[in-house]
């Protein structure tokens, strides 16, 4: 699964190779140096001798910025989300995190009822410039440390949702998220982090990407076409981008050229890029790790059907997880998580 990395690398030969964890850490570091109002809030993020967060993203930041700005919290997800929201209202730019995305359900009231709605309820007078980072993805931890939650948050008006698949995007999108005046839920995939040492993730992909020396930002709402092809459009996020790229390579060997789109942000969603692609290929396969029912792919399918019906030459298909909790046993988890083979088979059926 190296094609994405190669593509990113080729785009900037002067850059440095780094993992997503390193790219995220650099984004936080740069934004904290740039703006004193940026603070971090989370569990085990700054403790000396600790982990630097569950996946080492904040490792070393407390040493540079002090515990005043890298704030370790109790185990208190509703409190973290609410305090981050309140601090944002008071003029700070908090970047909060939860150790596993699944814990966001504990913070749901603060995110969905308060962070997302305060600007609206105030008649446009308030701003909530906060970021909530959350790791997602099935990684043999069973049902409660594994879910893909993007659709829940994409559904809430007032929240922005980012889900980068590579180090370049992770850094550029996180920097943008911190500077946005709206609340952002920022999803990171555990198998893409590239965490090292004792926090290295079993089964993780070796994702190294090229990150330029100079500063850059990536705007929300701009998908990226990673691979062009006239036969079918594959649209994916996070880990599924990599599986879709691999599937596209396999399909190419069979003479099927797929276009692969990385959504990068789900809210806002780059509809024009998707519709342009589908109007060329006439076929759409959506690849997501979330459960099939009500996943973000359902929205993409509905909107595409609405807009591109005249171009579609086949039914829109979704490759998603089944409607079950995430299983533990690796043999079951491998069945559960959409695979390259399933993507290839789904595309092949449409041809």
């Amino acid at each position: 699964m190296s094609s994405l990395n190669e593509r990113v690398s080729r785009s900037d030969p002067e850059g440095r190779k780094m993992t997503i964890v390193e790219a995220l850490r650099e984004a936080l570091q740069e934004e904290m140096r740039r703006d004193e109002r940026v603070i971090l809030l989370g569990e085990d993020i700054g403790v000396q001798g600790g982990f630097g967060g569950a996946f080492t993203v904040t490792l070393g930041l407390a040493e540079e910025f002090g515990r005043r700005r890298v704030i370790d919290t109790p185990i208190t997800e509703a409190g973290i989300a609410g305090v981050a929201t309140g601090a944002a209202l008071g003029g700070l730019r908090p970047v909060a995190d939860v150790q596993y995305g699944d814990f966001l359900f504990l913070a749901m009231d603060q995110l969905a009822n308060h962070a997302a709605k305060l600007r609206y309820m105030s008649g446009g007078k308030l701003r909530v410039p906060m970021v909530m980072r959350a790791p997602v993805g099935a990684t043999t931890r069973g049902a409660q440390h594994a879910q893909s939650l993007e659709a829940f948050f994409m559904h809430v008006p007032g929240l922005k949702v980012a889900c980068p698949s590579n180090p370049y995007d992770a850094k550029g999108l996180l920097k943008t998220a911190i500077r946005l005046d709206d609340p952002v839920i920022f999803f990171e995939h555990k198998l893409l982090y590239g965490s090292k040492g004792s926090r290295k993730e079993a089964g993780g992909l070796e994702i190294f990407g090229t990150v330029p020396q100079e500063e850059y930002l990536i705007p929300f709402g701009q998908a990226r076409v990673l691979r062009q092809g006239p036969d079918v459009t594959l649209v994916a996020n996070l880990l599924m981008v990599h599986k879709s790229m691999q599937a596209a390579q396999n399909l190419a060997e069979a003479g099927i050229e797929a276009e692969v789109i990385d959504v990068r942000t789900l809210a806002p969603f780059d509809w024009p890029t998707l519709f342009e692609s589908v109007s060329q290929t006439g076929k759409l396969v959506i690849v997501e790790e979330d459960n099939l029912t009500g996943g973000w792919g359902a929205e993409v399918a509905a909107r595409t059907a609405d807009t591109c019906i005249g171009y579609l030459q086949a039914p829109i298909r979704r490759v998603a997880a089944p409607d079950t909790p995430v299983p533990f046993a690796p043999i079951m988890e491998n069945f559960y998580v959409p695979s390259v083979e399933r993507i290839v088979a789904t595309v092949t059926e449409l041809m």
Partner: protein
Amino acid sequence: MKEVSLTKEKKLAIYRSMVLCRMFEERVNSLFLQGRMPGTIHQAQGQEASAVGVCQALQEHDMITSTHRPHEHAVARGIPVKNLMAELFAKKTGCCGGKGGSMHIGDAALGMLPAIAIVGGGIPLATGYALSFQYLKKPNIVACFFGDGASNIGSFHEAINMAAIWDLPVVFICENNKYGASTAIDQVMKVKRVSDRAAAYGIPGKTVDGNDVEIVYQAMQEAAARAREGKGPTLLELETYRLAGHSRSDPGHYRSKEEVAEWKKRDPIARFEAAYLKEGLLTDNLIRTIRSSVEQELNEAVAFAEASPSPLPEECLTDVFVE
């Protein structure tokens, strides 16, 4: 701590503010029953000493957070009543442009976040706002209002614990009006007082007569001073009673006539008047003058609200995001 001695002007300001709160609620009730405003309302008649005693102890750039029963907090904080009234009338000139309504009135620029109508939901927000004050080295504090019912919800525990460990400049104000909707607090809380719970966080907890405005003011001054000095939060329980129902359609059959009558005797405005008529600060004439000026202010607020334009239907699409 020594008694705070109030000037005559301060006492009169406190009195007028309580009268404005009460008469605002009475006017809203009557307008509501006439069908002149949409939605629902949760009123606070009887709780004026709490709203006013707390808000009179605050400074200009302090912040309050409120609840689904926010009218008196907003009036006591000094949000112009015409903008409050216009919001209740769902007008564009309302303090939230018609997007908030009764349960979300407020104006952060004037020291009150939009009221938070999820029980307990405002407690973490108040704590976060206090973190911003501390971080930005501002001399201000947050006064966080909530009811007795909120003291049983998780966000109460999570947020007060965080405020306590970080010594944040916030005062947690539990207006214990004895009922969460129709459920009596002693049915749903094993400890005697909400303030007993402060011990769990290692912060001071204090219960005072929430229907005596000067006692509330004194207690709030003390807690506010502590917060401003960087000594952290206080859990201040104000014992009070809502003379109205829980919401617009509630006749309050779960409360005995005797209990309501007993609390009517402790009406904070009547008590203040009785004490100061005797003492000479107030006269019947002065009371009439004050009430008539409040009446005038409310008449103007209603006229302003009724004459104000409604928002356009499609304005519902704006203010979701900044950018």
